[in-house]
């Protein structure tokens, strides 16, 4: 064996040495693994300390080591440390292998003998593997300074503004006619109860006027090519039938349009809007959208009232959808959430019993700019409720619907309770399983509600019915529930029921995820790179997530994530270029039979097929290094850098070295 390998066994204080006989291990490696190329084997108290690193560097220089195996903690902790140490001594960092005898050995086993034997096996595996390592260089890719933000809710707005203010250009794409997202629909925000619009609209205006922001509303991303630093994104700008250069946003068209339709989006179905409309007065941009499928002119060929009255001739019935292509270096997905459809729980009567409302409907109902001007009244439009029941966990924490907690419902329900109490003086009942208020000022808000005399009934509501069984129930909605704290069945008659519906991932989250090449959890929330230490990055370099797209969260948390994602993006932009781990697949052109089996296996479409030469090739910048194609190639033509067949097979043999010997000894 031509390689000269150094083995370094770490005590990690007593973390390892307490269970594994480190000295014995290192001596064993020095003797028994000599035939595999080990020329030196040492143990040391703390290998990661500067002294420990110098020990390795000294040997590299003086003994001309060509490979290094460190047996210590998990590579996820100190791989970088030891690789840099080797680099410092002139050895290619990728010729160093860190094997874990702490997390995988000393910390999980008690039998010292067995643990020591296992440590030997692990090291012999590392030695066998490292022999086949090859010197590698990290890949360097330039970063385009522009950024794409998808979704104009509060998270997207925050992210866009942070980046734009830092002097970089941002494309902000929003599906709806205006930015603002769900927050624009709310009346008050918990726990401070400040007016949602008052704090949101200034930010929306900033976005609208910002020189560094290109705002594309009524638009959707249809195609994403390229890779970190160099994405090419195609955006479909749907026809608005309004000439944006001419439109002054005066609103006359909206006023004159003779046709009304139910507004299912912004007013949550509680009110109507015109066919030419801006969803709400403070909309950004303030020029309207013409909803063609409902437009009398498009349906019957006559009307054109809007066109007649438009003072600037901005109406353009011939406008077509257009595709815009932009180059960006990074992408932030802030696509938000959908509200759980309360119809899926028939026993709660939504859609069947008039005075059962969803949370979003109620937000509009108590919103000063909403259909009732903020008067909390029943569907008849005049009667104020004398009693209101608020049902928590609707569609959340329920195996039949969504198993997760939607995080915002408790506080939202408390807010509703307060508003009802404040504006109508009605008796309010909250039906909860657990009250969760784990954030600054939240528990205090709960206290406040208790003081206001809101009734709290601990029990999941069984059903809401209008079938009166006892006196006092006629004409009421009866909430059937077990009050679990007193162990009694209760039927509570109320005038209005509010269902605190949970949050769900966007109905098209999976497709969108595929479009951008990022993964969804089973619940269709986008998966972050690390739940704690890398919460806004994804497994795809250059693509970040913020807000409810990543999971249910409230406004403060969404803003934080928007800012965090923008910080990550600006960090990347400042680097001017990214260096990528060289864990990549490469195709040996001569051995490739052109069978194309690998082509469809790659989720990142990193493998392209050359029709002319009839061979496949891997684009190193697109490849994420999962190695699936390597495993699948029937010709063995694809090799995975850093995880090659030779390396793995050698490691297997190495790991079993001891064992094989053992088999030889024991007959049978």
């Amino acid at each position, binding site marked *: 064996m031509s390689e000269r390998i150094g083995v370094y066994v770490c005590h990690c204080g007593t973390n390892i040495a307490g269970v594994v006989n480190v000295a014995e291990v290192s001596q064993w490696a020095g003797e028994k693994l000599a035939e595999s190329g080990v020329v030196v084997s040492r143990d040391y108290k703390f290998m990661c300390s500067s002294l420990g690193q110098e020990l390795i560097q000294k040997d590299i220089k003086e003994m001309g080591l060509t490979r290094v195996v460190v047996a210590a903690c998990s590579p996820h902790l100190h791989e970088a440390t030891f690789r840099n140490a080797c680099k410092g001594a002139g050895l290619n960092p990728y010729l160093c292998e860190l094997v874990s005898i702490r997390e995988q050995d000393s910390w999980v086993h008690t039998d010292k003998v067995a643990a020591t034997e296992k440590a030997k096996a692990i090291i012999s595996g590392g030695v066998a593997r490292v022999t086949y390592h090859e010197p590698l260089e990290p890949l360097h890719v330039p970063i385009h300074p522009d950024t794409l933000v998808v979704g104009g809710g509060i998270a997207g707005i925050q992210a866009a503004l942070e980046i734009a203010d830092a002097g970089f250009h941002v494309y902000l794409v929003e599906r709806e006619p205006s930015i603002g997202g769900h927050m624009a629909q709310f009346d008050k925000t918990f726990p401070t109860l400040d007016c949602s619009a008052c704090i949101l609209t200034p930010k929306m205006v900033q976005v609208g006027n910002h020189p560094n922001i290109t705002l594309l509303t009524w638009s959707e991303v249809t195609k994403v090519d390229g890779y970190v630093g160099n994405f090419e994104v195609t955006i479909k700008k749907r026809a608005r039938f309004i000439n944006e250069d001419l439109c002054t946003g005066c609103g006359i068209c909206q006023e004159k349009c003779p046709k009304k339709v139910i507004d299912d989006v912004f007013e949550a179905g509680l009110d109507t809007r015109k066919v030419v409309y801006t969803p709400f007065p403070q909309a950004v941009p303030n020029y309207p959208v013409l909803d063609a499928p409902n437009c009398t002119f498009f349906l019957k060929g006559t009307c054109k009232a809007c066109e007649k009255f438009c003072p600037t001739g901005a109406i353009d019935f011939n406008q077509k959808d257009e595709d815009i292509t932009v180059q960006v270096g990074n992408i932030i997905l802030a696509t938000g959430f959908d509200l759980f459809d309360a119809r899926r729980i*028939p026993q709660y009567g939504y859609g*069947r019993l008039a005075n059962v409302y969803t949370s979003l409907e109620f937000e509009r109902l108590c919103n000063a700019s909403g259909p009732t001007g903020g008067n909390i009244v029943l569907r008849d439009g005049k009667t104020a409720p004398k009693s209101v029941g608020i049902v928590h966990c609707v569609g959340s924490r329920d195996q039949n619907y969504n198993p997760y907690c939607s995080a915002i419902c408790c506080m939202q329900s408390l807010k509703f309770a307060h508003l009802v109490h404040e504006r109508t003086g009605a008796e309010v009942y909250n039906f909860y399983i657990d009250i969760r208020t784990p954030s600054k000022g939240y528990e205090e808000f709960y206290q406040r509600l208790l003081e206001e005399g809101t009734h709290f009934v601990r029990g999941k509501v069984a059903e809401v019915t*209008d*079938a009166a*069984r006892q006196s006092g129930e006629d004409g009421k909605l009866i909430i059937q529930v077990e009050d679990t704290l007193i162990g009694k069945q209760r039927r509570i008659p109320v005038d209005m029921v509010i269902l605190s519906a949970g949050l769900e991932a966007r109905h098209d989250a999976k497709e969108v995820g595929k479009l951008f090449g990022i993964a969804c959890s089973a619940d269709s929330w986008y998966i972050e790179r690390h739940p704690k230490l890398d919460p806004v990055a994804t497994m795809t370099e250059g693509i970040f997530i913020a807000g409810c797209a990543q999971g249910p969260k409230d406004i403060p948390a969404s803003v934080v994530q928007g800012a965090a994602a923008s910080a990550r993006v600006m960090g990347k932009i400042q680097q001017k270029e990214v260096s990528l781990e060289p864990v990549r697949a490469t195709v040996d052109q001569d051995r490739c039979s052109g069978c194309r089996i690998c082509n469809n296996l790659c989720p990142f479409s990193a493998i392209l097929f050359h029709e002319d030469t009839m061979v496949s090739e891997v684009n190193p910048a697109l490849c994420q290094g999962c190695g699936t194609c390597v495993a699948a190639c029937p010709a063995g033509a694809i090799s995975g850098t850093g995880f090659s067949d030779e390396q793995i097979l050698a490691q297997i043999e190495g790991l079993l070295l001891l064992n094989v010997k053992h088999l030889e000894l024991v007959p049978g």
Partner: protein
Amino acid sequence: MKPYAYFPGCSLESLAKSYHLSAIEVAQELGVELKEIEDWNCCGATAYFPVDELLAYTLVARNLAIAEKEGFLDFVAPCSGCYKNAYFTNAYLQKDQDLAEHINYALEADNLHFEGTMRVRHLIEVFIDDVGLDEIEKKVSHPLKGLRVAPYYGCQLVRPRKDDEDVENPQFFEGLLSAIGAEPVEYASKTRCCGGSLIITNRKAALDMVHKLLKDAAYSHTDVIATTCPMCNVNLEVYQNQVNQEFGTNFSIPVMYFTQIMGMALGIQPGRLGIGKELVYGATLRNM
């Protein structure tokens, strides 16, 4: 249409004769061939699982195995209880090999073997899914104009949940009733329990449940309650008087099997539908 393996169940031989009669008549009218399987045994009802689960499965498996042996594809039960037991036993045995082994060991004693090839259906499913509402509508000769019928699903027809069916507010029964020209009644407790065998083991509780049901039905102006299960029918009809005594009410809501009501719409002569054997007989019906 292929013939169906017909499993009447014990009640249809005694308490629910009229269900048996009307089911056969209506099926014939709609060209559905129901072939009673040979030498079937009791399905175990709800009283059986409390004693021995395996034995309960065996009882049901025997009937399924007989139907399999006779080469049927669909196993049809008019009784919701039988249906539920058959459906889930079939499903469990298909999933659980060990369980199936136990059971098959027992079945050998009767030279039978459970394969799991049956599709278990309730009679109403067969009419709605296989015959189809349009077909039924075509065959209606006496549409039940203005007759307010309360569809009573009860429990075992829709519960426990199979796949993703709506177990809280199903609609298929309403569809069937509209198809025969009747007016389906919207009422609160169409999937609420009738008390089942509690009528025997816990009379007070059962009567209370029946009372609530009748109350809800009456509240929504019901001419007749349509049932899909002998147990429900007996509880709602036969014990109506006891409810009246118990709660000082005076309900007299006729209760009929959905097949009897279908039969009337299809112009089958009432006698042949077992009509006239009810204890409660509503004015509306008499005038029909």
